[in-house]
């Protein structure tokens, strides 16, 4: 087994009295590609948002890349530099050009020079297949292009881990594949990825591990072969039959 890069032990997260995560245990190995699925409200987004501290967990331990997420803001900052995140709504900075979206964090948080940052930015724009869009503003791009810019923006920080929070859910159907293609390429390069998605074709193609969540708990964790063919839990097979039916 490869080196563990993320570990959660007994993680609980509450919103008021609602328990979004109930004593969740999970480990992710370096280079592992994990796909998390489950019905809405099952806690899957909350789970990955705890990993880079967009949500603060109430109980348990989260260790990322050897650092524990605690009240020490330096730890949080260090972890965020190593963990990239792609959002459902892209969340590009609308007042900045594509290139400036990509260079801002490397320059400010990594202390890179503008020249170096732009070099890296162009490299990753190339990787997501939109090198010609560098000087446009986000609103001038299609949804699929915006999401690829968002992926490139995260990659420019050269993270060790990438989190994807339903990256294709806000896209028109014809744009989903261009984003998934980029993610497949990223997976092939060995990036550690945790992807919350209902794109089961993508999951079958790249996932090492499938995780099914329901009601704030991890119901099932298995390889795609087991997960899709012989799910152990009834809730999992019910969920799968629903989303694979159409």
């Amino acid at each position, binding site marked *: 087994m490869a080196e563990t890069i993320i570990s959660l032990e007994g993680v609980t997260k509450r919103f008021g009295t609602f328990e979004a995560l109930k004593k969740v245990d999970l480990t992710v190995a370096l280079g592992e590609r994990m796909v998390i699925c489950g019905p809405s409200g099952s806690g899957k987004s909350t789970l990955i948002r705890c990993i*880079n*501290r*967009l949500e603060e967990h109430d109980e348990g331990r989260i260790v990322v890349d050897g650092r524990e997420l605690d009240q020490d803001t330096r730890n949080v*900052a260090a972890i*965020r*530099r190593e*963990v*990239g*995140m792609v*959002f459902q*709504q892209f*969340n*590009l*900075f*609308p*007042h900045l050009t594509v290139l400036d979206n990509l260079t*801002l*964090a490397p320059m*400010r*948080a*990594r202390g890179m020079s503008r020249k170096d940052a732009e070099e890296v930015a162009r490299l990753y724009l190339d990787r997501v297949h939109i090198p010609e869009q560098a000087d446009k*503003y*986000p*609103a*001038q791009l299609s949804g699929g292009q915006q999401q690829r810019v*968002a992926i490139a*923006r*995260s990659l420019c*920080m050269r993270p060790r881990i990438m989190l994807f929070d339903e990256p294709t859910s806000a896209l028109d159907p014809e744009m989903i594949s261009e984003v998934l293609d980029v993610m497949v390429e990223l997976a092939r390069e060995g990036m550690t990825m945790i992807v919350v998605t209902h794109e089961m074709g993508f999951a079958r193609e790249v996932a090492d591990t499938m995780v099914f969540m329901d009601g704030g708990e991890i119901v099932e964790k298995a390889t795609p072969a087991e997960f899709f063919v012989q799910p152990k839990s009834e809730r999992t097979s019910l969920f799968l039959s629903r989303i694979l039916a159409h």
Partner: protein
Amino acid sequence: MPTDRATRRLPPMAQVLLAGLLLAGCSGGNYTWGWYVVSPLNPQGQGNIAFLLSGMWQTISVSLLAITVSIPLGLLVALPGFGRNRVGQGFNRAYVEFIRSIPILPLMLWVYYGLPVLTGINFDPFTAGVITLVISDSAFEAEIFRGGLQSIERGQHEAADSLGLSALDKLRFVILPQAIRRILPPLGNQFIYVLKMSSLLSVIGVFELTKKANELVVTLYRPLEVYSFLILEYFLLVVVISLFVRRLERRMGADQRQRGR
């Protein structure tokens, strides 16, 4: 937008204003108008106009100074309201609620006559006036900043956080540049408000427009004509500010159009 309408309809508006004044002059009751006292066509009128206009610089400088200091101060007051620190939040609310509840005139009298007792430093009327306007205005600026900063979507904060930007960098490069476009119109409004409130400084003896007008009224005993002229002076200043703010908005709106939405 109101400023938009005000500036675009300026010529007809000015016409209506003038027509109204003339009409009142022709038909108005028993009063015999004495526009000659502020007429540029005779030497006495020219002298009076020069005297009235000589307050312009004080009005402009006092307002500009006040707004320039109160904008960063307002931002400093607004920011703790967003932090997690309870003390900071409390300070923000207390400052805003308390300061904006004080009418400007008593505040000014307190600063001019009261503050020297406490501090032992005597302020000249100009300084006391600027301090008063800055204190009062900063509370309103803080609320304007709060509204603008709060209007930025949570996703923008989360994107900046997840990229590892510090809180200060996030504010400086991501949140403020977007908020400033939404803040600009109410900020322009506030500038106009400060300019008009500077007329109160006449009470403690700052030689701005209103004080000059008061002095002239005492010697000429022509309050109607002189104060009409005074109102026209403020009107012109406000129009200039409106045009300036509109231009700024257009300049910033340029890339907003590129944003679509």
